[in-house]
């Protein structure tokens, strides 16, 4: 296979951790500019890639080398893009950490959060109260688990399938470090993919995380057969809710009205490609959460996020009606139609009061 790619193979390769759909999309984007080493936890996946040269149904560029060896990955690459579900993120960092050096730069693409509770505690305990200190964004997990300081994240409307098909799109690289942003931009940018920078790392991470809640609700509206008026209502009110929650969690308003906020929100709330949307859709069609989770191939981060965010804001003066409604549908078997009634009766009727 001859490649017309303009990548610079004299420079050190870039690492991607996680061979899920977004991991392969990120690998594909990076492979246009650099050689890529793609880590998959499962040795079988590595073997399959080596023999088939394809991943999730899409052909892989020749300059993507699969591996099952984290030490090799960390040795060969200065820049790493972990894209693994939040539930396995800390474990992955724990395994990777011994091989990391202070010169490593890590830009993650995981739109989820982690909750850390005392020993023997669980979110399912109704009496447990949690605060911001109990939850960690993925950049916070990276810093806790390793010596890496130069950390960033990817967020934005990045449906993996569309990226793999080569449709035009854009993303945000967020980091406190300008150099991380510009490295991310140089590595990811191509004629069909634009990359914006933002210094509000925590805000951008939460934008990507919180929008998943709204995406579930949006899927549910579609599942009930409602149209675009209803969806627009949800998206704009969801936006307001995200800003309230996000500010309290340490982000700025600006983070939520950019590509990683409103941009990602629109994409996930309107696309059946989104896993979180699918969860909501199937719930509205009458399936239970257990049934849905059994048949999903990849994690819908929104389910865990709803649980955590609902717990955090239980004791807050800020109200999060959409999150509460989604929580009741997911975990308390409330009918979607009932949840919608509850939302429509809400007396929260100031349009915009945060700008």
């Amino acid at each position, binding site marked *: 296979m001859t490649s017309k790619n303009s990548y610079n193979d004299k420079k050190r390769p870039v690492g991607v951790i996680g061979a899920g759909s977004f991991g392969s999309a990120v690998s594909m984007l990076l492979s246009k500019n650099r050689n890529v080493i793609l880590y998959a936890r499962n040795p079988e996946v590595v073997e399959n890639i080596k023999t088939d040269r394809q991943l999730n149904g899409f052909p892989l560029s020749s300059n993507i080398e699969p591996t099952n060896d984290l030490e090799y990955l960390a040795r060969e690459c200065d820049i790493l893009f972990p894209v693994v579900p939040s539930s396995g993120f800390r474990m992955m960092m724990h395994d990777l*950490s*011994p091989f990391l050096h*202070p*010169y490593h730069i890590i830009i993650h693409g995981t739109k989820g959060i982690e909750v850390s509770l005392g020993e023997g505690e669980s979110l399912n305990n109704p009496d447990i109260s949690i605060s911001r200190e109990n939850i960690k964004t993925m950049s916070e997990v990276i810093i806790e688990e390793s010596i890496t*300081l130069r950390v960033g994240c990817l967020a934005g409307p990045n449906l993996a399938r569309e990226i793999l098909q080569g449709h035009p799109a854009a993303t945000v690289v967020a980091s406190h470090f*300008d*150099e991380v942003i510009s490295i991310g931009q140089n590595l990811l940018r191509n004629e069909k993919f634009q990359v914006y920078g933002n210094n509000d790392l925590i805000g951008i991470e939460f934008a990507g995380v919180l929008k998943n809640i709204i995406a579930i609700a949006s899927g549910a509206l579609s599942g009930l057969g409602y149209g675009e008026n209803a969806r627009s209502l949800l998206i704009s009110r969801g936006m307001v809710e995200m800003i309230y929650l996000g500010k309290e969690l340490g982000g700025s308003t600006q983070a939520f009205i950019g590509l990683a906020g409103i941009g990602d929100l629109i994409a996930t709330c309107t696309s059946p490609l989104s896993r979180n949307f699918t969860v909501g859709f199937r719930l509205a069609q009458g399936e239970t959460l257990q049934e849905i989770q059994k048949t999903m191939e990849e994690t819908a981060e929104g389910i865990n996020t709803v649980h955590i965010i609902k717990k955090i804001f239980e004791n807050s003066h800020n109200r999060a009606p959409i999150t509460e409604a989604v929580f009741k549908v997911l975990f308390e078997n409330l009918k979607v139609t009932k949840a919608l009634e509850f939302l429509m009766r809400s007396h929260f009727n100031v349009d915009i009061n945060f700008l």
Partner: protein
Amino acid sequence: MVKRKRRKYEPIISKSRKWPVVLLTKHRDEFVEDVVEDSFEKIIRLCPGKAALREELETTMYRERLRIKTMPWKADPPDETDFWNYVKVSLVSSATQKDDQAERKLLKEIITRYVNEIFSTFKPSRHRLARRIVIGGFRRLLNATKIKTVTGAITGKHTLRDKIEITGEIEQLRSLATKGIIVMVPTHFSNIDSVLIAWVIFELGLPPFIYGAGLNLFNIGLFAYFMNSLGAYKVDRRKKNLPYMETLKSYSTLAIQRGCHSLFFPGGTRSRSGKIEKRLKLGLLGTAIEAQRKSFQEAEENGNDARKIYVVPVTLNYNFVLEAPLLIRQYLERKGQERYYFEVDEYSTSYKIATFLIKFFTKETKISVSIGRALNLMGNYVDEEGNSLDQHGNIIDIREYFMSDGKITENLQREQEYTRMLSNVIVKEFHRINKVMPSHLVAYVGFRIWRKQYPKLDLYNFFRLPVDELSIPYNDFKSAFKIIKDQILQLHEEGRVDITDILYQTTDKIIETGLNNVGMYHVARPIIMNKRGDIITKDLHLLYFYHNRMDGYDLEEFL
């Protein structure tokens, strides 16, 4: 009480001519030249092109002339007006020239002038004398009042060491001072701090540290003498122009790079509120990080090992802050949106300070100094050998934090970010090593009890309450006190705060000690017990000031 035997610390470098600060003075000209060069390049980079450079110079000139007119100080050099007039004339005459040679030359002259202002000449002989005056004088003062015999005064049974207790990671500090370069960062509550720290440094057998002392202190005769002798360089807080700030930072960076142990008060100025610093000034702290990167770059070129820089947080724990009434007034004025205030520091005259020192040595009170564990510049703890360790016990090569694409690179934004991270760790360490004294606790408890009685009043109206009407029956006070004391002991167990031994005594005894000590020399005492045995206050502002020391431990949940 059994007197603990105190160890005497031998000097780690016995010959004063080998002290880094002495070497710096010896090679003064070369050093000044380097600082000029370094800051010149930085400013040129910040103001590229003739127009930008002219604008900066014009702003600087304007501000300087304004300062000379509105805020003249005794310590100012006599030829200031002439110099800035010369700058003005030169700027006018070079306006029409095409190139920026004249502006560059002018900038260099300004920087050179600033460096010479900042530099103080360190003289070992004078240092020895100053030290002898500080130590001998204090001792004699102490003994003359304690033991009323001539022999007692001369043999010096009571020493400063009995008054000032130094605890914490002393051995590590001494050991690291021989291996690398120390940047000591203490909390700052009083003008006395710099003299106190200088004494601590001497007592621990360390060579003198350099530190930036406010030029205003050089207005005070007594201080000026000590400052010049203790390795201080002058920082003029009236000058906020870019060339001055950059020069100051270059000075600090290059001095550290040359191995001078340094002292920054990272809060910038004295804590006006009495709270432990929560926000640090990043400018000077950043110079430590820059110095480390430069050392690594230099070492890479020369093929040798760079000396490591270690940050050592220190807290100074007082029962009494001389300037408290002024500080808290300024704090409240600023918070109350009074944007313009005039700094008249009535507590910083030689006379006031001398009186304070006499009181300090004649009354039973202790100052305690806590030396924290050393950190690397990224805020990780380091071991006795000076190695930074990661979560897995592997040695971290901090050089690699300055690398990108396999090379050490200069990236100021990156270093700013590291500075911000480091400052957060220092603030945390301050709270952790801060030593809670009984006086802090009584102030906290008293203030909180009264404050909670008037939840509807804002702070400013609360302060207007007539103090005669405020009193707390002793038993109520005691039970509230016990709750807070237990919480502090709990925090201490968890390693989140340090305490003085007195906190293990009975509640009554702790309260008594606290009441006797808190702000003991103020005319209006912040909290005392009246004849009926009730707890009363004479000054709510002062009480607030001393209470603030316990801020940041989430005690509000408990009282």
